[in-house]
């Protein structure tokens, strides 16, 4: 099939998956909401419109919450492109955020420089941690999926140990660190909202990753390995090295996302569980079909739904967990290779026939014994 037609099919398929997901969600809404229409209104419209006017504060909230999932989405996108099913986005977000937070508390630096250093440290921590599953994969042929999944819990409990036993602010009612130095905070992009400069950094990261993936030899190698590892090896690429690089880049991106989130949204580190951005990043990357350029749009969509679910739980009594159901259904249909395969086949047949009609054909000769 032509590239364009393929693209059209993929978009159609994506829309169908989303539509089905929302339809499934609506069934649940019918079951648990007193006023299903109001619930649906909260889910789909209220995030941007309320009482006939733009819901400005909510719009900023949607944009702000895109920031971490753009980073984890990009991370997953790079790793999945190399065919590495690394799921440690979750843990590296947490570790990157935690260490960046510590730098923000204990290392006094000049105002402009401080958040930059914190974020870079967070990125380095994320990258370094990803070396573990990457190295185990290349040297020991251990599944990066299992390794990285387990790594999340190791990171969680190590962070929890240091948070509650070493760095806890005992004067607070809950387990959290001392507040960050004012100089370390990631500044607000618009005063009085959750939206920080981090959002612009995320957009910049998107552009950078897109360039990296499509305009550099390393990004190219990552993609080729993802498509056909044997071919890459035969072509003379350093397959092992590139596999490690792809996962380290994933770690750097999610560590960065974690750092920006903890320094932008809160005034002290207070995560007591895995934050969930890593998992959402996987949904985002799958929605974006591993295309970095599409990541912000996928993140916007998920963030919008998130906000909708939040409003639904506040105003219509539908549990906020609805977002997980919607995400799961979208995930299912996107990942299902055979979903709408018949439609695809019909399109293929149509195109093949058009092509054949164009060609001049060898005429069958007599011969009928």
């Amino acid at each position: 099939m032509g590239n364009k037609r393929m693209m059209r099919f993929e978009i159609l398929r994506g829309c169908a998956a989303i539509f089905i997901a929302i339809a499934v969600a609506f069934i649940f809404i019918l079951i648990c909401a007193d006023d299903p229409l109001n619930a649906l209104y909260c889910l789909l419209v209220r995030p941007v419109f309320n009482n006939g006017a733009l819901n400005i504060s909510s719009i900023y909230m949607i944009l702000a919450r895109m920031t971490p999932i753009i980073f984890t989405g990009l991370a997953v996108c790079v790793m999945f492109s190399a065919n590495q099913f690394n799921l440690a986005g979750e843990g590296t977000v947490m570790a990157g955020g935690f260490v960046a937070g510590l730098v923000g508390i204990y290392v006094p630096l000049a105002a402009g420089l401080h958040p930059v250093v914190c974020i870079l440290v967070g990125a380095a921590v994320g990258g370094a941690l990803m070396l573990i599953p990457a190295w185990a994969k290349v040297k020991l042929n251990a599944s990066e999926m299992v390794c990285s999944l387990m790594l999340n819990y190791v990171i969680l409990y190590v962070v929890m140990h240091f948070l509650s036993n070493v760095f806890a602010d005992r004067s607070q009612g809950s387990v959290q660190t001392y507040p960050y130095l004012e100089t370390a905070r990631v500044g607000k992009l618009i005063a009085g909202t959750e939206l920080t400069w981090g959002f612009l950094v995320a957009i910049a990261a998107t552009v950078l990753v897109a360039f990296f993936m499509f305009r550099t030899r390393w990004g190219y190698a990552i993609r080729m390995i993802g498509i056909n590892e044997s071919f890459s090896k035969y072509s003379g690429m350093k397959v092992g090295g590139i596999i490690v690089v792809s996962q380290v880049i994933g770690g750097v991106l999610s560590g960065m996302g974690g750092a920006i989130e903890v320094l932008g949204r809160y005034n002290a580190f207070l995560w007591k569980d895995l934050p969930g951005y890593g998992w959402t990043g996987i949904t985002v990357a799958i929605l974006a079909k591993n295309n970095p350029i599409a990541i912000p749009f996928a993140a916007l969509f998920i963030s919008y739904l998130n906000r909708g679910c939040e409003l639904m739980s506040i105003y219509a009594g539908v549990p906020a967990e609805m977002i997980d159901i919607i995400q799961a259904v979208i995930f299912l249909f996107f990942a299902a290779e055979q979903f709408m395969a018949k439609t695809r086949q019909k399109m293929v047949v149509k195109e093949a026939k058009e092509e054949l009609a164009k060609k001049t054909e060898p005429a069958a000769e007599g011969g009928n014994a």
Partner: protein
Amino acid sequence: MADNEYVVQMKGITKVYPNGIAANQGVDFNVKKGEIHALMGENGAGKSTLMKMLFGLEQPTEGTITVNGEEVSLTSPTVAISKGIGMVHQHFMLVPNLTVAENIVLGMEPKKNNLFMDYKKAVEITEEYAKKYNLQVDPDAKVRDIPVGMKQKVEILKALVRGAKILILDEPTAVLTTQETEELFKELIHLKEQGYTMVFISHKLHEIKQITDRLTIMRGGKSMGVYNTADISKEEISRLMVGRDVILTVEKEQAQPTDVVLRVRDLEYTNEWKKKMINHMSFDVRKGEILGIAGVEGNGQRELVDMLFNLNMPDSGVAKVNGHNILGESQRKIRDLGVSLIPEDRMTFGMAGAASIEENLISDRCAQKRYNNGPLFNMKKIHEDSDKLIEEYKVLCKNRTQKVGMLSGGNIQKVVVAREFSAEPVLIIADQPTRGIDVGATEFIRKKLVELSREGAAVLLVSADLNEVMELSDSLIIMYNGQIAAYFEDTKDLTDTVMGEYMLGLKQQSPEEVRRVQHGE
């Protein structure tokens, strides 16, 4: 003609694969009861696709299939078998670790006490059928230990035991020696006498003439007509198959070989089943010559190539390119020494199907200065060179961004060849470079290969296609059983009869004669 004399009628069959290739377009195919019907055509003409539909492995996009006068929907091989259709695949579908008898009753094992497999009964069944149809096999031998010819008999028996009355034989002689082929033909005629119907897929003209009653010729996914074998000449068949009188003789000047480029000494390799695949092999390939390696497949050719490109490690031995070791070196290093490889398995090693033509063309050179501006790709240069290669190698495509997986086999191979030949190689290893691709592409690739060798590249050509090795090679090795059975300095006066004797192990040159392939040292 009354319809009921046909056991199989396929009407207006069209098949479009998910990758958009229309392998069959409105094909009619009818088989009479008790005949051996040849299905002929070049590779890619759609023969296999048509037969896969008859055996239920694929479903037609359009058209109807009638078996014994009843319209059927063959949704799986199980359904096809229940209608009395059996297929003998080109690549045997046998379990190597099981015995012949176990393979034959696989999935329909006779039971003892309804619980255990009755092995004795399985052997009895095997022997009974083997005797009845005169297909001699050893029921207790493990399939991995038996020769190819016997494997084929096991496949045929498997189909017969399952009640097949119509047998589809997919290029049954491709893997057989001449003697085995003769034997097979006797057995097939014996089956025919007992009322069986056979569809015989092949593109070997003399075999078709020898054994079949009627033939259907396919070309480009369409049927070119049905003929009585006796009434049609070989020349006519050939014309219908390829559409024009193709004479695949490549004009080439006398080779002027100079220095040794590839030197191989005492190479040995034992495979994972402890079979010695390469036994003390030594040879040299010189600059400016094409050294052909001929032989029946499975005599160590594939293992040899794998080792020269470090896809496998030998037990011992030496292989050097211009004095530098290549055994166990990274593919990067081997390529940097100027070695190019056209891999036998192009789908696995030669290309990334979901990537564009352009991306496939730069895979070995993406790190070169020429294509990079600092950290970024120099897209302009990449586009320029890709377009140039697509044009020079006549790759039929929409443009450079088209996915390679969407191209036809011949064009995929042209992409592989364009990349490998444009790397300015000092040594080209071409492993089955034209297998399964159309005549036009074949001719083109062969010409290029000769051209490059005359410009000074050393070429090692491995091919199971006798015509190809004889036409292209300046000198020739015949491999048999992991060894060099013969070396011919000049291929001009070589005949296929002579080659056949060495290929089948009937003859073997003396060590002194073979040693002539080592030039110096």
